């Protein structure tokens, strides 16, 4: 179980600390995407598409479309931030910058590098969601949204856990894809479909999607956020998010270690 213990060892924290240092140094550019993305999405989907949809039914009561997508936006930001960090940024560090190889010449071992990437993606997703949440709170103040904004901080631990699970999934492709161009495969075959078909931006009731979404952590994350922020069932979705995220971590971190041992160490 040394792979599991590594999650709390100082070397993993040192790797996270390195990534955080780079992020904070570029905070002005790093701050922009999470601040602008929800504005764009709310304007495009909420004001644009919402003009045609106006309202829909959630848990037997009508709610405005803008209010429906706001929690979805938070779930989508969690998913996309964690997955893209572990797909592209980790791949660049592994392949082109050779940051991993440099770290591995020190007391840091591969399991710490992997956990460092996973924990960092979870932390980054949490930081992004804080910014997105602040923007949404601003929309709420103007009356464009109607959420229980005081509950927004409750989402953060869940964002971190789910973000780590999504990062473990993303790292799998980092371990498998031969070049960065091949990342189009997971992006278009898995990430985008999953991001859009998880009831993030619109409710999907097709029986096939309903069946698939039963084991889709992003779907449960979006529904859980909706339950917390606009009222509705929470516990079932909360359990599913935590359970599925832990399952992703427990299966994919050891698998990633195995794949990356071959790829990075040549062993």
């Amino acid at each position: 179980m040394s792979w599991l213990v590594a999650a709390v060892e100082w070397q993993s924290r040192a790797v996270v600390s390195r990534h955080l240092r780079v992020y904070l140094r570029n905070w002005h550019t790093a701050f922009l995407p999470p601040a602008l993305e929800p504005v764009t999405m709310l304007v495009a989907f909420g004001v644009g598409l919402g003009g045609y949809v106006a309202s829909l039914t959630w848990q037997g009561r009508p709610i405005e479309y803008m209010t429906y997508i706001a929690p979805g936006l938070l779930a989508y930001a969690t998913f996309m931030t964690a997955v893209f960090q572990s797909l592209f940024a980790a791949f660049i560090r592994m392949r082109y910058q050779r940051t991993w190889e440099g770290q591995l010449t020190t007391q840091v071992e591969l399991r710490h590098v992997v956990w460092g990437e996973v924990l960092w993606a979870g932390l980054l997703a949490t930081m992004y969601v804080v910014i997105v949440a602040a923007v949404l709170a601003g929309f709420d103040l103007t009356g464009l949204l109607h959420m229980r904004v005081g509950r927004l901080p409750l989402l953060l631990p869940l964002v971190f856990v789910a973000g780590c699970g999504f990062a473990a999934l993303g790292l799998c492709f980092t371990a498998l894809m031969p070049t960065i161009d091949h990342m189009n495969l997971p992006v278009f075959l898995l990430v985008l479909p999953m991001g859009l078909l998880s009831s993030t931006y619109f409710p999907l009731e097709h029986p096939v999607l309903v069946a698939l979404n039963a084991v889709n952590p992003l779907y449960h994350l979006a529904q859980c956020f909706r339950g917390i922020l606009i009222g509705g069932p929470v516990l079932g979705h909360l359990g599913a998010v935590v359970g599925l995220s832990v399952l992703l971590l427990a299966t994919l971190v050891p698998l990633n270690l195995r794949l990356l041992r071959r790829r990075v160490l040549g062993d």
Partner: protein
Amino acid sequence: MSALLDARGLVKHLGGRRVVDRVDLVCETRQIVGLLGPNGAGKTTTLRMLYGFLRPDDGRILVDGVELGRDLVRAKRSIGVCTQDDTFDGDFTVEQNLTVAAGYFRPRPSGLAGRVAELLERFDLAGYARQKPETLSGGYRRRLMIARALVHRPRLLFLDEPTTGLDPQARMGVWDLVDGLRAEGLGVILTTHYMDEAERLSDALTVLAHGRVVARGSAKGVLGDLVGEHVVVVAATNRDAIAVWLGAHGRGEPASVLGALHVPVSGEELAEFARAFPSLRYEVRVPTLDDLFLKLSLSP
């Protein structure tokens, strides 16, 4: 006193092939051990096992008295590694590369700010401290790589082809630095393809071929054992006659370089050669490690 590095019976299989086969290697304080061999001899795999990057399938590695397989983290505290390719952190400046690298060691290096300033000064990097490493020339990048490997004050330093691709002046600069590190008491394991580098820097050589140690000792001793006392250089137009003579002495094909045959011989063989080819024009020179590599690459 125990050796800084004591590796015994190292074995490693990669891709179903035995690439390192029962290799022993010892390095003492104030000693530079040159690890040599042609491409594919198993140098890099051996080195990677020694600094804990790969796990040996068999054998034991002691670093400063700590068994690598039992307490990798503690053993790695005594090790500094300068890889063949640049692996500095491109997101940070030269100075930050040193401080960030120090963060990957426990106990943390004491007096870090002073240590970083000392290394910047010593490696002539102070003027570039706030620049990104990719703006440096090849020679200065190597200096940064070595400085980074030393930031935590290791006792044993691994240098994997540290001067590959550098111009002669930059190479000599690196040699001076490595020589200075030995004088300070570090043990250094050095792999190189440059024969003059191995001869000038190394106190002892270990030569690998096909994953096995084929010779060890001083450069002169290794050459005498594996190559011979002399090398006869003769025009390749005489290949047939030379091949017959070598065949009669139980030897294979001679190495051919730029239209000349290079034939390693012992003192007795040189006398016989002179008797066998009284009218042939040839040159006799002392063997170098290039001859050794040629010989190893020709042997099955």
